[in-house]
């Protein structure tokens, strides 16, 4: 304590003074209470509401079939699990979701592990750049890969402009163009960077001495990998496995774009269909199932991590593993790594960009190139202006910045406030409650959370007006969904700042806000910037969370791209996605510049 160096008398006085002023002047407790109230409403109320929605008669059904609005019913539970259509709206989508998740995760895991090993531990060419470049797919919105795939492999089964391959005279078969295969591949390519990051960091943490000992005893590199490194990676592998499965289950864009033409329905798209056909009871039930799967996966992950914790080896700091010489495999492995980069990161960009520049797909003559889709007043073949001349896109662009921007600022500040309250009120109920509750949204897939918000804020309740159709609802749902990341980083940032500087300020007579502004804010500047830019990036590319909540006038870039796809305006959709990609890339670069770290590793969204 600050007082420990003072004389006994002084220390008593000072500590009394501090205690008094803490009670009177320091609003920490007040902040804690306010946060508890706000978060209870924003996090727990939606969850309660979705549970109650799953067993109460909707207003629509009450109107159509008689009965009372809100009365208790098993109707929707029956409809999802046992009715004559349950197979179509739940069981088959569940099976498809699990199938796709399994394969996508398998591919993502394998790619992530191989690439992480190559980049961290071998002399592969360009390993310095690959570490960053291989993370790019993670920064693209998830529909980028899917629309790029569609632009490339689309055949005449569905409407819209010709696919690129088809315009070259090659007709891709349906199984290659739509359905489980492309969905699994696209998801894997979107999510492998996540595995890559986790494996890279795990490989970096393995104590190099273990390997040195083994090689001193004459073990070959192959034996070291098989007997030492890979077994040590088991906990990470489990984490990657579970978290990737959780992510793929909640992904909406990929199955919507690539599954719908083949009527290959996943839980996420089935949920969306139910939203579109106003079946909100069914929406609630499916959303609950999705959340339960999410919770289950996460609990298993926590259990696995805990179980394996005793095997984690700490040490070897500062000593980097010598890159092993690959010998004759150097060229093929390099080739492999760069091909993956090409397919997963550069490829989509090129395909998307090309498609927006060519009037007719596949015609590479010079006259066929132009900016019609970008700046045209009336794009040929569409009743629609180009991207920069279309009021819809301009609105969506503004909305995206406004919504993701304000959500991330609020989220960042809220995260630090939570951190402050949690750290400064240790051992209190408030502290542990805040810690738990701010993590809760992490368990629910975006779609399920959005469904909960839809049901909660559709009508006005008490002093809270009906937010449906307003920008504030979108901001709110983003804030709450990204809160787990922000509060986690807020808590850990606050942990590193002891109470002493503040208490010193207090003794010198600085009020609460003065202390926040002059002491805490400067100390937490970079934490705050990270806590703001990360949600911003995630918010810019967010789709599944907002797709059910947007209304005309509140469309975001991501949802606008889906609208364009619905109309078959593939090129405009692609252009919109490119804009998102570019904005996100710039944000990441700014972030890297500001924090001087490779923040790709912090991209948790």
């Amino acid at each position: 304590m600050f007082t420990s160096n003072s004389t006994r008398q002084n220390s008593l006085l000072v500590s009394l003074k501090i205690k008094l002023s803490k009670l009177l002047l320091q609003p920490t407790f007040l902040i804690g209470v306010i946060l508890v109230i706000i978060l209870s409403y924003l996090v727990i109320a939606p969850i309660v509401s979705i549970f109650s929605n799953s067993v109460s008669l909707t207003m629509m059904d009450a109107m159509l079939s008689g009965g009372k609005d809100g009365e208790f019913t098993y109707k929707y539970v029956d409809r999802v699990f046992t009715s004559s259509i349950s197979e179509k709206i739940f069981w088959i989508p569940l099976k498809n979701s699990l199938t796709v998740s399994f394969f996508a995760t398998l591919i993502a895991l394998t790619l992530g592990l191989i690439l992480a090993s190559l980049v961290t531990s071998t002399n592969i060419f360009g390993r310095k750049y690959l570490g960053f470049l291989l993370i790019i797919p993670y920064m693209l919105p998830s529909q980028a890969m899917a629309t790029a795939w569609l632009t490339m492999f689309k055949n005449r089964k569905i409407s819209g402009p010709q696919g690129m391959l088809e315009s070259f005279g090659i007709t891709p078969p349906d199984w290659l163009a739509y359905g489980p295969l492309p969905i699994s591949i696209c998801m894997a390519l979107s999510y492998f960077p996540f595995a890559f990051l986790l494996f890279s960091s795990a490989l970096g943490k393995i104590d190099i001495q273990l390997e040195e000992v083994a090689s001193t005893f004459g073990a070959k590199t192959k034996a070291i990998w098989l007997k030492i490194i890979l077994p040590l990676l088991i906990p990470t592998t489990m984490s990657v496995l579970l978290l990737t499965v959780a992510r793929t289950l909640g992904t909406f864009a990929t199955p919507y774009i690539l599954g719908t033409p083949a009527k290959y329905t996943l839980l996420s798209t089935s949920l969306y269909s139910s939203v579109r056909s106003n079946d909100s009871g069914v929406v609630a039930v499916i959303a609950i199932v999705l959340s339960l799967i999410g919770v289950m996966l996460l609990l298993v992950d926590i259990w696995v991590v805990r179980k394996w914790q005793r095997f984690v080896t700490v040490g070897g700091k500062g000593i980097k593993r010598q890159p092993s010489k690959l010998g004759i495999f150097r060229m093929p492995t390099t080739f492999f790594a760069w091909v993956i980069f090409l397919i997963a990161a550069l490829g989509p960009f090129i395909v998307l960009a090309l498609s927006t520049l060519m009037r007719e797909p596949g015609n590479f003559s010079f006259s066929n190139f132009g900016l019609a889709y970008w700046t045209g007043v009336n794009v040929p073949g569409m009743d629609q202006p180009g991207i920069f001349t279309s009021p819809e896109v301009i609105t969506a662009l503004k909305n995206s910045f406004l919504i993701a921007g304000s959500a991330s600022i609020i989220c960042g500040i809220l995260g630090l406030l939570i951190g402050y309250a949690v750290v400064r009120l240790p051992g209190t109920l408030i502290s542990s409650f805040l810690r738990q509750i701010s993590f809760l949204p992490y368990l629910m897939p975006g779609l399920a959370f959005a469904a909960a918000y839809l049901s909660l804020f559709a009508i006005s309740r008490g002093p809270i007006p009906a937010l449906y159709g307003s920008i504030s609802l979108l901001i709110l749902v983003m804030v709450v969904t990204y809160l787990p990341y922000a509060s986690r980083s807020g808590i850990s940032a606050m942990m590193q700042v002891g109470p002493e500087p503040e208490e010193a300020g207090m003794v010198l007579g600085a009020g609460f806000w003065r202390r926040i502004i002059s002491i805490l804010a400067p100390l937490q500047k970079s934490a705050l910037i990270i806590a703001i830019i990360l949600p911003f990036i995630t918010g810019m590319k967010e789709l599944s969370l907002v797709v059910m909540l947007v209304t005309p006038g509140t469309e975001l870039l991501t949802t606008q791209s889906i609208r364009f796809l619905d109309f078959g305006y593939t090129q405009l959709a692609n252009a919109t996605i490119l804009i998102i990609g570019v904005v996100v890339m710039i944000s990441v670069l700014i972030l890297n510049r500001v924090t001087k770290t490779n923040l790709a590793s912090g991209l948790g969204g």
Partner: protein
Amino acid sequence: MKKTKILSLITSFFFGLTLLLQPVVSFSMTLDELIAAAQKEGEVNTYWHSSRMGKKVAAAFEAKYGIKVNATKMKDSEMTERIVREVTSGNVIVDLVGYDDGPFLDTVLTPKGMVENYVPPYLSKDIPADSQKPLIYLWQPFVIGYNSETYGDSCPIKSLWQLTEKDWSGRFHMWDPRIASSMLQMFSAMEDRSDELAASYKKHYGKDLKVSEANAGLEFVKRLAQNNPVLYNEDYEIAVAVGTKGQSKAPIGIYSLGRHRENAKKNLALALCDVDPFKGLNQPTYMQIVKGAPHPHAARLLAYYVLTQEGANPWVGVVGAYSSNSSLGSSPDNPYPTAEAWKGTLLVSNNTNVANRRSDLMDFWIKHSK
């Protein structure tokens, strides 16, 4: 002489009385008064079944009256949700809707007082009585169409039942019935006219239809669902899928006849299928003012406007739509000059029947679709 004076006195008394009774929005305003009141409101918000409200009518209306039209194209399931949410939350944004879901309108929105039926008094004599309650503003044929470049002058199918044959599996393109109520309206109308479907089967295949469902209409819906049709959210995409040139096995689709106007502009080869027993569905679109509309006068003026030649022109000036205002003509490109002239070849659903059957039909469709 005296009598007429008294009569006019009485009339004006009642006229005044109605004015007093309806201080907010008066039905008996003159058109000029309505225009003035509307201009004071300055803008009007619409949810519309067709993008032409936003793309064509809005600009013309603003140019004429100086009133801004905010138009959003929307599928009817979404529109239903919006109207109900807005009215029940008291946060009404929309003023006027162009709405396809007659069954829901007749059984819920109107009885619950969520919408207000407004027939512009200046035009009411030209609108047939059966289109006034609730007000239908437009009839749009949704037709079975084919690709005339691939198949020439005649449609590759003669009977609707051929759509359920293996040859057309995955090659019939239509709206997703989960999203567009028109398809449920069509299914219900097919149930109503089951006999004709059964007769068509016999005529085409020379044998009786084996019906394993409640009626021939349902039997058709089942077989269609099982034959893997391609589903869309937007009819624009259906028309493009069917009409794009250079296809060797072009599909058949159902879409609004109005898409034929885009044949030249979008280089499509859409043509109407002369198919037995129905060529499609005649879809009425209703126009209603939403309860608590923030711009009630502007909404009324716009409702009036789209029933005049100038306001209706984006629809009736081209192929594919007929105004309910019988004094307005229709485009010479239409196969028939009026909606009635199609006679029985277009299905027209009965709102009550659809309302009774829709959730069963929807589940029936989901259950049988692959």
